[in-house]
Every structure is written in C-alpha cells, then in structure tokens.
C-alpha cells in the first residue's frame, strides 16, 4: 500500500524561514513587502503557466427530456390530437393510480450498471485467456467474481469499481445523485469523479461515503475489513463512530465495533501495531491502555489524524493525556477550549480537525446527515 504524502517540517529548517513564511502576505495575496525568493520562483515558473485559455467549441448538449411526437401532437391546434391527449392523460392517470396502490418497486430498480468481466485461466502458464464478457447488474442484484476472475464496473456515469477475485457485492441503489452498493466480501478499488457524497458502500460494520476520491476497500468473510484512501478522502461511519480517512491513510473496520482509528500508512511500524492493538482490545483493558500510551508516545504531528479520533474513543480521564499530546503536536485553534474538547463539543472538535489541514469537515457533516446507516441486513 503506498503512502502519498510525507509531511512534517524537518528540524533543520531555520526558525527565521518559518517566521518569514507564516507572516508572508506576499505569499498569501501578492501584497505587502515583496518576498524576493518568491518573486524569483514566480519568475522562473512563469514558463509553465497556462498559455491558451480560449475555450474550444463545445458541443451543444440537450439536457432537457426529449419531447416525442405524441407530445407535439397534443400541443398542436387540431381537434383530434387534443382528444388523443385527453385520452392519454386519463390513461396515464389511471395507470399511475393503479401503480401507486401496489407494492411498488424502487423507481430506479431498472437502472443497471455495465460490468466487464475478465477471467484469467487457472493455469497461469497458458498464454491465452477467455475474452472479456460484458454484463449488466441491476438494482437488487448480487454480483460476484470467482477465484480467477476480476471485473470492472461502471458506476453509472460517476466512476468505476475494479473488483478483485472472490468479491461479492450487491447493487442497492442507482438513482440520480445517490448510488449505493453493499460489499459483502472481497476487494474493490473505487474511482469516483462525482461530487462528494454521491457514492456509498455499505459493509457489515460501517458505511463508506466517498468524498471525492479514489480508495480501496477490502472486507473479509467475517465482516472485518480495511479501507485505504489514495486520493481525496473517505468518511467511514457506523453507529456512534466515525472515521475520516484522507489520502495516504487507512482504517481497519470490525464487524462488532465499527471503524477503528485511522492512521497514516507511513507511520512507524510500532505506531501502526499500537493502533491495531487499540482497535481490537476491549474497552478499559490493560492491553488497550498500553496501546494508547504507545500511540501517544510515537505520534508525529502528522499523526494528529489518529489522535484527533482517539479523543472520542477513550474515557474522560484518558482524554486529558490525548488532549495534551495532540495540543503539543497541533495547537488547538483559538475558538476551542480545553474543557470543550474534553466534553467532546462537536463544534470545537470540528474546528480542531480543520486545523489538521486534512479537508474541511463541513463537507463530511453535510453528507453524513444525508446518508443513514446500512440499508439492509447482510446475509
């Protein structure tokens, strides 16, 4: 698993440079005292600037629903089409009434996603493989790959999923602005280019909400799993717990307890082991406390991600130590207080999250409200 960002200022950087940058209005908006080094960089990099900003001739796209010939007929000024229109309206009304009284299927139940299934031969010494098969998966259907097949699924027109062998998923919803699957087992690589929050994945332990990104989600037969984000970020939530996973980070999820503590994948082995131990140990156990101490001791400024989540996963007593360590690594913003954080004031926690500079949490709060927990029980 690769890690994208490697942050953290090196200690050998001069304090003068840090101060110079922090108060640099020239860097912020090109005003104030000119910074000669930035001016030199601007001058040098100018040659890479966009040169052609003339828009190409964009094709005309008709977004409006097409009016068919019967509609044109009903709107003409002749008597016969008006009668036909009245008849059709009455018929449509009757059909709608009948359908509304029946146990209705979801309005998007007919909406399918196209699937390209690749099957590699079991004997890898063979050079030929079966040609790819094109299929459709409909809302309500289950799709799975076997030991030798992989699949590429177009998520309507908002992205795609690559399925590794032995992956099973169900298409739950495919309406405009809302696409939902359940991943029962296996591994998917999701690339989503829709606006944040349109695509969610239910698992046995938590719901993953895409916030504009690329990520990999693996779920084992027992319902536990791992989510790692490559681009953008993902919100992972379950009853009572939420985990926000930015690019370069990962989080384990457990069927019984939901998402664990997210961690950057470039953290030390000791730190990651401690996170894993914390996630799997019982609340209040000595093992969990020991893991917590290692997490606090080993955390770098970048691991503020983990510590921020840890605040709400420990007892009020233990929270004081987490607060102290996180404050030392990422100073809390001015609009927060120690008391507020210790009582887990939502607005203050959100403000501190934003100070971690991993994405605006307002985006998550918006989408969190619009997507409830798993819609169906897993089989």
């Amino acid at each position, binding site marked *: 698993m*690769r890690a*994208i*960002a*490697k*942050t953290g*200022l*090196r200690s*050998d*950087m001069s304090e003068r*440079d*840090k101060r110079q*940058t*922090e108060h*640099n209005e020239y*860097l*912020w*908006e*090109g005003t104030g005292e000119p910074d000669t*080094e*930035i001016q030199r*960089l*601007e001058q*040098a*990099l*100018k*040659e*890479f*600037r*966009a040169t*052609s*900003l003339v*828009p*190409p*001739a*964009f094709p*005309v*796209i008709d*977004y*409006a629903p097409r009016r068919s010939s019967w509609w044109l007929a009903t709107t003409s000024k002749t008597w016969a089409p008006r009668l036909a229109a009245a008849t059709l309206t009455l018929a449509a009304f009757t059909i709608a009434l009948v359908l509304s009284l029946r146990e209705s299927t979801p309005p998007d139940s007919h909406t399918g996603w196209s699937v390209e299934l690749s099957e590699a031969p079991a004997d890898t010494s063979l050079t030929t493989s079966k040609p790819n098969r094109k299929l459709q998966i409909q809302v309500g259907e289950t799709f799975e790959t076997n030991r030798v097949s992989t699949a590429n699924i177009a998520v309507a*027109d*908002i*992205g795609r999923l690559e399925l590794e062998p032995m992956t099973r998923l169900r298409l739950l919803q495919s309406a*405009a*602005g809302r696409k939902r699957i359940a991943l029962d087992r296996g591994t998917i690589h999701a*690339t*989503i*280019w*829709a*606006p*944040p929050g349109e695509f969610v994945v239910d698992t046995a332990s938590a719901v993953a909400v895409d916030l*504009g990104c*690329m990520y990999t989600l693996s779920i084992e037969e027992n319902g536990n799993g791992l989510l790692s984000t*490559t*681009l*953008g970020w993902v919100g992972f939530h379950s009853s009572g717990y939420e985990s926000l996973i930015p*690019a370069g980070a990962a989080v384990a999820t457990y069927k019984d307890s939901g998402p664990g503590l997210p961690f950057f994948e470039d953290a030390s082995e000791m730190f990651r082991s401690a996170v894993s131990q914390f996630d799997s140990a019982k609340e209040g156990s000595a093992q969990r406390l020991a893991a917590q101490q290692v997490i606090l001791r080993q955390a770098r400024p970048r691991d503020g991600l983990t510590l921020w989540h840890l605040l709400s996963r420990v007892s009020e007593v233990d929270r004081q130590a987490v607060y102290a360590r996180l404050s030392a690594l990422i100073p809390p913003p001015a609009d927060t207080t120690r008391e507020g954080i210790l009582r887990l004031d939502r607005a203050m926690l959100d403000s501190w999250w*934003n100070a971690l*500079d991993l*994405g*605006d949490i307002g985006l998550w709060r918006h989408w969190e409200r619009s997507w409830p927990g798993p819609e169906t029980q897993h089989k």
Partner: protein
Amino acid sequence: MVTEAQACLHDSDATFVRAAQQGDTEAFGQLYKRYARMVHGILLGRVRHVEVEDLVQEVFLRALPRVCELRDTSRFGSWLATIARNLAVDHYRQSQTRPESPDDASDPDEQPAKVNVSSNREAAEILECVRSLPEAYRETLILRLVEGMTGPEIAMKTGLSPGSVRVNLHRGMNQLRQKLAIGKSRNASDSKNGTTV
C-alpha cells in the same frame, strides 16, 4: 475573508453554471475561461507539462455532459477540481498500459511526472521540487507560483477554506524552501567533488 468582489464572482459563476445546465455552451465557455487556469495548475502537478493543455480541454469535455447533475451550483469549482484530479489518475493508468517509456513516472503522486520541455533548467528543477511535495501543498503552490492566483482566489475556485489554503501555502513554501536549500547545498558539494550531475 471573502470580499464583495469575490462574492459577486461566485454569484456570477452560479449563474453561468445554471445557464450551462440549460445547454448554454457560451456560459460553459465563460466557466472555461474562469477555471481553465485552476484546472491547468491541478494537472501540472500530476502529469507531464507537454500533455497538460490537451488534458485541460478533456476535463471540460468530461464535465460538460454531467454539469446538469450538479445540484449545488456554488460547488462548481471543487467539482471540476475533482474531475481534473481523477482525469490525471486515468491518464496515469492509461500510460501504464502503453509500452513503457522512460518518461513515464511510476506513480502520479509518489513520483510526479518529469519535466521534459523546458528551456530553463532551473525552472524545471524548481517545478520538480514543487511536485515532490505532498499533494495538498503541491497543488496550492502551483496555483500560486505558476498560475499566479492569489490565496483568496485559490480558496474561492477550489472550494477549500481560506484557512486551509493559507496553511497549505505556508507549510508548502516552508518545505519548498528547505528542499531548494538542500538541492543547492548538494549541487555545491557535487561541484566541489567534481561530480557531474
């Protein structure tokens, strides 16, 4: 802080987005003029310079048929930025399926694309340094230093909060200064030892 002028710009963006959603290609052209520089900057941090301008157009062509699905018109910039980032990923994946070329980077984020065409070696080296920064810093610094956008403008266009942009600029600049200083001292030491770079 959002100025009145920026608020007006945002409002008119929403107007153009709504018009584009009705099939008005001129309005979409206006959005192109306003956002092409942002898209160019985002792509420049991820793909080879020579390929960026073509991909800018591709980003808009990819956005055009889907603009009608954008419910919150005020988020056009962040939506477009996501499309640009994803296109860069697609572009990288496609390049992986092509015969290997020495110019192809092994990963769009870990090893950003090499600068091939540059009349100025120093500029190319600086751009490489910027590209080696973490994603958030890289993107914001390119928009500031290459595309000439101000911090407030970057925030307005990308949908990031002004605070995040300010932090990205400052932290990114600190890291860039450091990398450039290391590069300079390494070059000095190499030339002292008679090493050819």
